[in-house]
């Protein structure tokens, strides 16, 4: 209403001024000269021109946008204030060129800027509204083409005028319109992406990624343009104060785009490598609504280690912001990365996780609690010895076991299996709290907290179990080889108690049926005894070190205590007595070769056969 009155007033004033001039001079040219000479008349004319520009703007707005929404209007006014301030700052730089034409150009620029912002807002609005009419598309198309052509014309004009007349204020316009051209391009790409998305029945998963890359590219272009502008302006005129704010904004948005792209790439990589796709049964079994978008999950879903399933695209956009499970906020990357640093490949990791999950989903707690004890007993069966419980803070170095494990296949296969005595029940009472008999009595929250801590425990345990497995392989090779050597030498058992141990395991006791054979060993000639005793010592040392490492490492796991007193199963190798005579000869020959080949007792070459 007020604006209507103001423009009416302006029209009336103009009519009065023109009427007055014409009344005084009676002719066209003298009246024009009269008006241009009279300052008050010119002021009225300028105001009228301004009113015309505004009316023109309103008309164009009506054509291209229809009614503006409140948010758009707010946005527009807020940005216009900054733009006006910057224009005023620009006037100070170019005060020598100050002329009505110059002001008109700046006003035009301001208007075009407003239209660019509105176009941006409109295209963003596409994502927000459920109804996009045909008129909307027509408007956006025509507006973008119109703005693009104008921008290109002005850039072109500025370029040629700079070439012809040298650097003037046109330089500023050229850069401003070039920036606006990037806005048009960005808006157009967004519009195309949104339109494609609207045409599709299903949500377009990759749209967000394309948008990110577009933003990155456009941000980069803008930053480059601003930097060029700054450099040129500093060389030609002075420091362009008016360009500081938009430049800062451009740099900030570019930085944000870069950060987003990096985070998005990381999220995609993590999802592809770390998390398995949810299977059909998993999707069918539970409530299959993705908690992020509240849509049903049918295809391309990912399952996190905490058992929660999401759409791949939803999860990606969330991981771009935060690396936690949206449901339970379990930090899904940190625990995975801990395992990965221990040298496991992604494939192995996946297997481990799948294993963990299936175990978790079955008899969760009971299974978890019995796992370490099962492996402890197994380990004791294999070694036939009592693991020392020497406390040590150092973790189990996985690398120790690898050289020993490598030649395992052949040697282990050649050795007949030992008569293991399964002694599992014996170890059950040690160290493990019994699993709660009835889980149904616990509340949902209690169960969840329990799950959280149990999961960490299981992960720690599985890691140790892997190490144990590697060491077990190594131990099997060593036992096999020792046995072969021992068999060929005529004594078939060793007594670690008779050799010195580096880690204070003197209390370790091994009971053996054939311990009297050790006297035979002492009676053997020293030339033969040298190397074999060396080997024997090395084997047993290594072996005990493995054991110590293992159980000291396991001590760290929550809820695990290494068994301290254990009955050691008795066992023997039945082969030796049957083949003793035959082997005597073989043994003698081997020892000869042995002392020739390995005078230094090089333990690295363990494959004696």
């Amino acid at each position, binding site marked *: 209403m007020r604006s209507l009155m103001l423009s009416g007033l302006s029209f009336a004033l103009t009519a009065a001024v023109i009427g007055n001039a014409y009344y005084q001079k009676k002719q066209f040219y003298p009246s024009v000269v009269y008006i241009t000479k009279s300052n008050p008349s010119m002021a009225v004319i300028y105001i009228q021109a301004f009113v015309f520009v505004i009316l023109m703007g309103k008309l164009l707005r009506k054509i291209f946008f229809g009614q503006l929404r409140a948010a758009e209007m707010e946005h527009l006014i807020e940005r216009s204030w900054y733009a006006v301030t910057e224009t005023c700052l620009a006037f100070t730089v170019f005060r020598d060129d100050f002329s009505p034409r110059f002001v008109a150009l700046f006003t035009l620029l301001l208007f075009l800027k407003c239209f660019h912002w509105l176009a941006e807002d409109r295209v963003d609005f596409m994502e927000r509204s459920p109804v996009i009419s045909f008129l909307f598309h027509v408007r956006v198309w025509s507006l973008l083409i119109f703005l693009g052509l104008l921008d290109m014309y002005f850039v072109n004009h500025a370029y040629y005028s700079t070439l012809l007349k040298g650097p003037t204020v046109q330089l500023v316009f050229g850069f401003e319109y070039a920036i606006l051209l990037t806005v048009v391009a960005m808006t157009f790409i967004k519009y195309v992406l949104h339109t494609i998305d609207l045409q599709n029945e299903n*949500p377009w998963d990759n749209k967000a990624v394309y948008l990110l890359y577009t933003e990155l590219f456009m941000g980069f272009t803008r930053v480059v343009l601003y930097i060029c502008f700054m450099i040129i302006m500093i060389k030609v005129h002075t420091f362009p104060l008016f360009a500081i704010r938009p430049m800062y904004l451009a740099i900030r948005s570019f930085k944000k785009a870069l950060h987003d792209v990096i985070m998005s790439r990381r999220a995609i990589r993590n999802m592809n490598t770390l998390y398995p796709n949810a299977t059909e049964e998993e999707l069918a079994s539970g409530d299959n609504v993705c908690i992020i978008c509240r849509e049903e999950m049918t295809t391309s879903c990912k399952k996190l280690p905490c058992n929660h399933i999401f759409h791949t695209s939803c999860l990606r956009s969330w991981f771009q912001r935060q690396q936690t499970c949206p449901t339970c906020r379990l930090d899904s990357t940190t625990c995975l990365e801990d395992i990965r640093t221990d040298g496991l490949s992604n494939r192995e990791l996946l297997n481990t996780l799948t294993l963990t999950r299936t175990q978790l989903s079955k008899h969760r707690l009971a299974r978890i609690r019995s796992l370490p004890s099962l492996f402890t007993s197994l380990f004791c069966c294999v070694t036939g010895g009592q693991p020392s419980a020497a406390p040590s803070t150092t973790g189990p170095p996985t690398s120790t076991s690898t050289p020993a494990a490598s030649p395992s296949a052949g040697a282990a296969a050649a050795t007949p299996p030992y008569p293991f005595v399964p002694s599992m029940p014996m170890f059950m009472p040690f160290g493990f709290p019994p699993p709660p008999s009835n889980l149904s009595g616990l509340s949902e929250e209690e169960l969840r907290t329990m799950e959280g801590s149990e999961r960490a425990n299981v992960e720690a345990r599985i890691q140790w179990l892997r190490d144990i497995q590697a060491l077990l392989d190594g131990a099997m090779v060593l036992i096999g080889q020792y046995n072969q050597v021992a068999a060929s030498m005529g004594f078939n058992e060793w007594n670690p108690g008779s050799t010195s141990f580096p880690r204070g395991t003197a209390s370790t006791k091994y009971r053996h049926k054939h311990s009297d054979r050790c006297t035979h060993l002492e009676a053997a000639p020293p030339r033969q005894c040298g190397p074999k005793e060396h080997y024997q010592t090395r084997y047993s040392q290594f072996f005990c070190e493995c054991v110590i490492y293992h159980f000291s490492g396991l001590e760290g796991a929550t809820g695990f205590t290494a068994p301290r007193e254990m009955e050691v199963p008795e066992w023997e190798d039945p082969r030796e007595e049957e083949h003793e005579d035959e082997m005597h000869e073989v043994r003698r020959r081997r020892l000869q070769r042995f002392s020739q080949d390995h005078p230094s007792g090089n333990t690295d070459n363990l494959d004696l056969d």
Partner: protein
Amino acid sequence: MAGSALKRLMAEYKQLTLNPPEGIIAGPINEDNFFEWEALIMGPKDTLFDGGVFPARLTFPPDYPLSPPKMRFTCELFHPNIYPDGRVCISILHAPGDDPMGYETSAERWSPVQSVEKILLSVVSMLAEPNDESAANVDAAKKWREDRKQFEEIAKATVRKSLGL
């Protein structure tokens, strides 16, 4: 098909319309734009704000539900956890990154699991039990803590005002 934010908001709107929680009405102001909602919250029974009906406005970001919406009461509400300008200060409305009060754990913050319904329910419980430890309106918190009588009077006046009495 429309964007995922829009779809989710439409789903939530449907859910809230079909199955409205007690004392809460919420929906888009204009169905052309699903990112601006109006909510009417009834003061919880047997509390200071019993009987009042408080209008609020919810503004959703384009990347909802990855970022939280903003909520502000459009009526006057003297409450320790509501800024004098009407903005609501509850932890689930804060994005995990920023921590205006410096004491919330990330577990209390926004996550896509939250929804409009949960936000409004938390606001209702916030009306019932003000938390004066992290005050958005320090005056209100001080009154609440030190001069409960006067706080009650102000609350009653607010209720009357909200009903247009």
